[in-house]
C-alpha cells in the first residue's frame, strides 16, 4: 500500500469515526450550555447518545469497533483519550440513569470532549500513517 492510499484510508476512517460517534454523541450536549443541567425533555436523548448510540450499542462499544481500522495503522493518543472518556461514561451509567446532577453534568462534559477530540482527529486526516 502506497503512503498516499494509506493516508486516504486514514482520513476516511477518521471522518467516519467523527460522523458515527463524535457527531452523534454530542447531540444533546450541544443543546445545553456548559455547566447547565439539561431540561427534562433532553434527558432521555442523553441516555441514548451514551448508552444506545446506534439503537442498541453503547457509545464505547461502537467507538471500539469503528476505531480498530485506525489503530491498525496508527496508534494515536487521542484514540486512547476517547476510549478512556467513554469508559468513564460507562462507569457512571447508573448515576446518569438515576438523574444524579453531578453524573449528568460529567456525562455532558464527556460528550463534548469526545466530539471535539474526534473532530480534531478528522481535521488532521486521522494522523500520518
Amino acid at each position, binding site marked *: 500500500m502506497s503512503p498516499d492510499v494509506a493516508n486516504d484510508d486514514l482520513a476516511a476512517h477518521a*471522518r467516519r469515526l467523527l460522523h458515527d460517534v463524535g*457527531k*452523534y454523541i454530542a*447531540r444533546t450536549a*450541544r*443543546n445545553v450550555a456548559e455547566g447547565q443541567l439539561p431540561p427534562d*425533555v*433532553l434527558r432521555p*436523548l442523553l441516555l441514548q447518545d451514551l448508552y444506545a448510540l446506534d439503537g442498541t450499542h453503547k457509545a464505547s462499544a461502537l467507538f471500539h469497533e469503528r476505531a480498530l481500522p485506525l489503530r491498525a495503522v496508527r496508534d494515536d493518543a487521542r484514540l486512547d483519550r476517547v476510549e478512556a472518556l467513554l469508559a468513564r461514561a460507562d462507569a457512571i451509567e447508573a448515576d446518569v440513569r438515576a438523574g444524579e446532577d453531578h453524573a449528568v453534568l460529567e456525562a455532558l462534559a464527556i460528550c463534548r470532549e469526545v466530539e471535539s477530540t474526534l473532530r480534531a482527529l478528522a481535521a488532521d486526516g486521522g494522523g500520518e500513517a
Partner: protein
Amino acid sequence: MKARAPKLLIVDDGERYAELAHALLRDYRYATRCELSLPCWECPRREGCRLTHAHDWAETEQALRRHSDIDVVLLDLRFHIPVERLLPSDETRLAERQRLEGLAILRRLRRVRAELPVILMTSVEQLGPEVDEQVFAADEFVSLAGADAFDARALGLLIERTLARRRELGASHGYEWGESPAMARLRRDASTLARTSLPLLILGETGTGKSALAERVIHAESGRKGSFVAVDLAALPETLVAAELFGTAPGAYSGAMEREGRFERAEAGTLLLDEVGNLSAENQRMLLLALQDGRITRLGENVTRKVDVKLVAASNVDLEAEVRAGRFRADLYARLNPAARLTLPPLRQRKEDIESLAQSFLRRTFAAGPDRALLLEYAEAAGLDAPGRVQLCVGKGVEGALSFVLASASLKALRAHPWPGNIRELELLIKSAALLALADAREAIERGRAGKEPNTIPIPTKLLRELLQASWVAPDTEVRTPVASAMPRGKSLRALAQGLERDLFERLFLETHGDFVAMAERLLEGDAEENARRVRLRFNQLGLRVRELRSRLEG
C-alpha cells in the same frame, strides 16, 4: 389568533434529528406519515414509532402526497439503508451510494417539488471533494448545517432564514400580491380580518383571485386547524344547494342518505361560499339562520348542530345592487360584514403587477407535474442539469437560472391588453406561451438547430400576440352584466344604454388595437371601410378619446 406554524418534513434514515426537533423545535408542525393529528411529542404511541418522518425516498414521496403544505424539508446526506431502498445509481459501491443518497433524494425533490426549500443537514467535509458543488449553486435554498450539526438553535435559525427568504420572494402562502398600492392595502386588511371571528365578503370580477385569496390567505392566516372547504354556488342546481350546505338525514327526500354538509366538513376551518349572489330566496333564509346562531339543521332532521366555521362569501356581482333590486336579502347581506369587504381590483387596474404575476405563474407551471416533466426533458436534451428554478426575463436571460425571455414589445403588449378574464386569463396565457416556446426550443434541438444558449428560451412576440388575440372574446352578456349591475341607482334607461355602448366601443378599440375598420366589421354590416367613418363618429359622440386609449394600449 396565532398564524399557522410552518410545517417541516424531516428526511433522515435515523431518528436522531426527529427526536431532537420534536424535543426543542415545537413551534413548528411536522409532516408525519401518521393519521393522527396531534403533535408527536403528545402522542401516547411515540415510543418506537417510525411514522414521525421519512426514512428514504419512497417514504418522502408518501409524505409529500399526504402534505401539500410543507414549508421546508430537512434532509440528511448519509442513508444507511439496504440497497433495495436506495435510489438507482451508476455508482456500484454500496457505501458510496449510501454516503451520498441525500443528494439523490435532493435531485428527486427538485423534480417533483422544485419550489420546496431544502436544508441539507450535513457538512462540507461530509460531502467530500468529489461532489460537484454546482449541485448546490443552482439551488438558492440549500444551506449547509455542518459544524452546527444537532444544534437545535442553529437549525431553527436556518429554518427561519429559509422561510424569510421565501417570504421575500413575494409569495405569501402561494398568493401573489404584486406591488400595486391597492393590493398592499388589501393585503394588510386581509391578514387582519383573517385572524378575527368575523365573516368576510370578497368582491371582484371573475378571475381576480377571490377563491385563492380565501384559501391561501384568509384560511392560511386564520390559525384555524380545520379544513378549507369551498362551494361554488353557481355550479350547483338550486334544488341541491341546501342538501350540499347543511347535509341530509335518511329519508329527507327520496333516496336521501345520512350525509354531512359542507358546513360540518368545514368545522373549525373555513367555508367559502363562492358566487353567493346566486342563492335562491329560500337558501338565503337558511344561510341567514346558520349565520345568526351558529347552528345548522340537516335536511329531514329536527336536531340542530353547532358549527364553528369562518365563513367567507365571494361574489362577482355588486351585492349591494342586488339588495336594492330585491334579489338578495338585506339582513343576510348585513350578516356578511359588508363594511369590511375586500374588493379585488381587476387586472387592468393593476398593470404594474403583470410582470411579477407572470413570473409567479411561470415558476408555478414548472414547479411540479407534467409541465415540470416537459422542462426536465428539454434540460436533458439540451445537456443541462435539472433546473432548480426558472425565471421570466425581459430582454435577456439571467445567469444561474433557466430563463424564458420576453421582448420588451411583448411586455408592452401584455400591459396594453384589457384582461377581461383577469389573473386567470394571464395565468393561462403565460403557461401557454412558456410551454409552446419550450416545445419550439426542444424541436430546434432535435433538428440540430439549437441556439448557443440552451439556458435561454425566447418567447416570440408573434406567439404572444397571437395568444393575446385568442385569449378572450367579449360576448354581449359579459359586457352587460357587470356594467348594468354597476350602474348607479336612478340612472335613466338612455344613460344606461349609452354607458353600455361606450363600454363596448372602448373594449372593441382595445381589442382591435385601435383599428376602426376592424371595429366596423364587428359592429356593422356592409363595407367596413365605409362604415369605419360612422364608427369613428359615434366613438367621438360617446366621449371616447383615441389618444387616451392609445396611451393605455402602449402601457
